[in-house]
């Protein structure tokens, strides 16, 4: 579904991504982990069209998408929940959610999705007509995820979904991601910590210093040592993946 080869990107003179290769197959849940400043957020921003890559290729469903604007990619089925609660603070919760489903043609299904999402995140229902900017940190994060779900994308990218969420809610969020995935949604998720993801991930990439330091199937990484080594930069790039 998503195929990235030799991707480079940066801010001014700073190279944040130095030749990244990454593949997401249809139906997978792929996790990207790595320390602060590794380039995880930059990677998602570049895929979604918020940043122009300086080199390499990006293909989505076989089509080269590098340089296309985000509004176009969105219509092709790509959704991004950016780092740090990019909700519309001055709009109401309702309006925020409405904007999620805005470009969808299937209005009836969209309405049903809305019902479902409000059930998953009851707090959004309680604050439905309130201003989104007044929500608590975790509530805002839930709103951002809910809105992305309403986009009904084919590939959803989430930057640190657990940020600021209560433990119980993290469980709920991951549970609903799992369900969505079972329903056919492909996921590319960035996380800080590796603790919770092993049982959910199809594959995991460890990004460090703008490089892929490790990639592999979750099952192969389950013991955790290789993962930790890659994470903190002991040893060279390795592929446990056959």
């Amino acid at each position, binding site marked *: 579904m998503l195929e990235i080869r030799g991707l480079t990107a940066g801010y001014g003179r700073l190279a944040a991504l130095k030749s990244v290769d990454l593949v997401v197959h249809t139906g997978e849940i792929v996790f990207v982990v790595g*320390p*602060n*400043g590794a380039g995880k957020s930059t990677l998602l921003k570049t895929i979604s069209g918020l940043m122009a890559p300086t080199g390499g290729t990006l293909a989505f469903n076989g089509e080269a998408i590098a340089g296309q604007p985000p509004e176009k990619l969105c219509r092709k089925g790509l959704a991004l929940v950016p780092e*740090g609660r990019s909700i519309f603070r001055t709009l109401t919760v309702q309006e925020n959610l409405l904007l999620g489903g805005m470009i969808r043609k299937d209005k009836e299904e969209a309405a049903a999705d809305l019902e479902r999402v409000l059930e998953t995140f009851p*707090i959004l229902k309680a*604050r439905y007509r*309130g201003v989104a900017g*007044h*929500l*608590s*940190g*975790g*509530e805002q*994060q*839930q709103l951002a995820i809910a809105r992305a779900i309403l986009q009904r994308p084919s590939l959803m990218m989430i930057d*640190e979904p657990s*940020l*600021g*969420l*209560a*433990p*119980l*809610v*993290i*469980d709920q969020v991951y549970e609903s991601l799992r369900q969505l995935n079972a329903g056919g949604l492909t996921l590319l998720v960035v996380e*800080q*910590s*590796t*603790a919770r993801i092993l049982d959910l991930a199809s594959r995991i990439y460890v990004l460090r210093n703008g490089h892929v330091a490790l990639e592999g199937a979750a099952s192969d990484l389950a013991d955790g040592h290789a993962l930790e080594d890659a*994470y*903190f930069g002991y040893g060279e790039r390795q592929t446990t993946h056959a």
Partner: protein
Amino acid sequence: MSRPSKERLEARGVAVAFGGIRALSGVDLELRRGEVLGLIGPNGAGKTTMVNVLSGFQRPTSGSISLDGVDVSKLTARKIAQAGVGRSFQAARLFRAMTVEQNLSVAAIGSGLSLKAARERALEILDWMGLAKKADNRCDSLSYGDERRVSIARALALQPSFALLDEPASGMNDAECEALMEVIAELPARFGCGVLLIEHNMKVIMGVCQRIHVLDGGQSLAEGSPQDIQKNPAVRRAYLGEKAADSTLAI
């Protein structure tokens, strides 16, 4: 470094309502000098609101705040800060165009120091937190983790009797969390202050708090030692979930 003198920061029967939304209803909380008190609870439980009330950014609808028995509910945020209540924010809110050292100096000046003394204190704190190398960096060039550390350091530069930290570990990876835990655990001894710690990362909470206060839906749900809280079925149901509770129990 002169030591803070206040002993107790107390909230009595604090209620906050936004229109129909009751963010807090009748919460009692006491923070003592020298301890680390955890404040946890589900999203929207009212934790940030509580910190806002304690630091003077939110007038309580009813109830009162007192410092060593003196009512400070009517004071402005600045006066409360000067009286010895420092805080950090859920979003770092650094002075972005200024250097790290200047961020701390501002708070030190706010606590009444001269420019020179303020700078000395700032460097001292940065040194202790391992940020000395970054002292002259502008804050808009910091990584996320460093931003969070600077925002804690800035709260400390005020030389507070009480430091209120709102999710300091959010967005940090496991190793960084551990480093942060060491810092927080050392605060009472080093700065002589009481710490109120809001965090969703249970490892951090369980690792450094002597006492934990749980909020749910604007009300106190429980208070006690980490062990008690972890075992408390109501807390498990409302907040921790079985998974998190078990995984942290293992520590």
